């Protein structure tokens, strides 16, 4: 655990253990990595864990350039920091994760340094200088240039971050590739939240677990790729209906009740556009799951699990093949989970839902015939349909019984 200057390839202040170790550490003979042909050299670095590749990049600028040109593929890259530390978490392709911590200390922390080294904590890098946004940018770019990563996430610890730092670091995050932004701990004011949502592109996944204002509104709030808010009592039914991210909405505290959920589900069924893949939310405190309210005017295949109504439902018009069948699951702690799947995911269930929908259409047709009395109606044709529809209905009901291996209750 030596002290480094940002951008340097040699420690500016080697720790005591490194100095002693370097005196005695003499391997039999080096393997001259840079003299190997391209293919084995690249293969060797790909056999390494992400943190080892980072350590290797610190050896020299030439080594770093070589590693940058043949980026190591990783699965995920998370950056988390406060005003005093900066932590990188890397998930390698092997499934193992590595952590690199950059920390700033004004003085040489002799005992801490010794203990950390004795405990073999090699992932901590100490810096002689305090972190300025430019430094963060340089360290971040230096690390990320070594890897090819499909998912980059920045985590801001709001209770340990000065406001001016937050803005500057956020600019660094948004200047590069950033798929997910998380704001943890502390409190976030209405003004700051508005400012953040003005700045953060809606293609980003947004997670806020910091305390948020109870009353809040922003046009982008329900447009992000993933919406994960621990406080969403300010969210309205219209907010929920406006979701088109085709991905995830997770609200850990809301003012929604069963009536709102029923309204949302009716809207989802009729919506001409794909809305979401998963909605998880906590109902308003004290709300009791009422199946009559929940199922009002919905066509569903219902079953009960732990005395709670679970059901499957389908959209009327398919616009995204992957988002066709919805599965509603209430939990005992008043959380509800609504996940949306492709028709292929539950083939038998989708067929049943189609038949149930057809039954409802035929029943409505019969009702309309009873209600419509006009001289313009072709009575012969109508009488013929009156005889046909019950037969069709009977046939459909029989088919449903044959196909239903699950024992659903049909609600339409």
């Amino acid at each position: 655990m030596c002290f480094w200057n940002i951008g340097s390839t040699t420690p500016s202040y080697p720790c005591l253990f490194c100095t002693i170790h370097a005196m005695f550490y003499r391997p039999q003979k080096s393997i001259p990595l840079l003299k190997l042909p391209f293919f084995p050299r690249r293969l060797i670095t790909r056999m390494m864990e992400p943190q080892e590749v980072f350590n290797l990049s610190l050896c020299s600028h030439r080594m770093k350039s070589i590693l940058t040109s043949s980026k190591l593929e990783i699965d995920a890259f998370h950056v988390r920091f406060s005003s005093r530390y900066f932590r990188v978490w890397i998930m390698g392709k092997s499934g193992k994760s590595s952590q690199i911590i950059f920390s700033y200390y004004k003085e040489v922390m002799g005992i801490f340094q010794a203990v950390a080294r004795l405990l073999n904590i090699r992932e901590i890098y100490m810096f002689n200088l305090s972190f300025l946004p430019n430094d963060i940018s340089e360290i971040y770019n230096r690390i990320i240039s070594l890897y090819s990563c499909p998912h980059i996430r920045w985590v801001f610890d709001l209770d340990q971050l000065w406001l001016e730092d937050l803005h500057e670091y956020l600019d660094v995050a948004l200047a590069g590739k950033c798929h997910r932004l998380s704001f943890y701990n502390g409190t976030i004011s209405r003004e700051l939240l508005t400012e953040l949502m003005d700045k953060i592109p809606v293609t980003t996944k947004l997670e806020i677990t910091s305390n948020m204002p109870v009353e809040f509104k922003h046009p982008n709030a329900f447009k992000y790729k993933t919406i994960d808010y621990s406080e969403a009592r300010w969210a309205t039914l219209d907010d929920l209906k406006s979701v088109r991210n085709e991905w995830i909405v997770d609200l850990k505290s809301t003012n929604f009740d069963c009536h709102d959920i029923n309204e949302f589900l009716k809207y989802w069924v009729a919506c001409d556009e794909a809305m979401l893949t998963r909605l998880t939310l906590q109902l308003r405190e004290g709300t009791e799951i009422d199946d009559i309210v929940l199922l009002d005017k919905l066509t569903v295949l219902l079953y009960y699990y732990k005395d709670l109504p679970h059901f499957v439902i389908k959209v009327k018009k398919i616009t995204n093949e992957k988002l066709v069948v919805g599965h509603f699951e209430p939990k005992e702690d008043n959380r509800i989970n609504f996940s949306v799947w492709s028709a292929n995911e539950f083939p038998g269930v989708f067929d049943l839902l189609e038949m149930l929908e057809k039954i409802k259409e035929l029943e409505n047709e019969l009702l309309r015939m009873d209600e419509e009395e006009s001289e313009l109606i072709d009575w012969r044709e109508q009488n013929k349909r009156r005889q046909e529809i019950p037969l069709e209905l009977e046939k459909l009901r029989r088919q449903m019984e044959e196909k239903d291996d699950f024992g659903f209750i049909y609600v339409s």
Partner: protein
Amino acid sequence: MSVEPEVPIVQVEEVRENPVLYKIISSDNHVFTISEHAVKLSKTLWDLITNLGLTAENALDNPIPVENVNGKNMETIVQFCERHKYDEEEPEYTNYIREFVLPEWDRQLLSIDNEELFQLILATNYLDIQKLMDYCCRVIGDMAKDKTPEELRIIYGIPTDAEDDALERSASDSPGPSG
């Protein structure tokens, strides 16, 4: 293609199983016999055998010279190929770390000093033996475990920036081909 009569012929145990044998001569004139299944692990050797039209009948009369590989490395390579000749074919090379555990037998085989390992990896690269290359690289990659940048610099013989600069300067100062 002349071979010194006193040159030792290295017999590998498994060779006897396979009736089709090939002879390989290393750069220091050691002669090795290798079975057909085993030699197929080396893309370079197998291409050579195919192009030369060697068959079961004439293989032993036509030794294959391999100028770039010495006897010591060739012995390791022949042992490795005979050991792995019936292994299932490796899946297509993937673009990331492959999680495999180096078998104990191979770990023992590759427990050689770094200089030899370096030469072996060059030979493996030349002979294009994917599995042995994977194993050698795994051994070399594993040397980075729990090492600091300073230790890595020593293990992998990486010059510092100052050394690289000095090398570059001396290269640019030295006279070119025209003198």
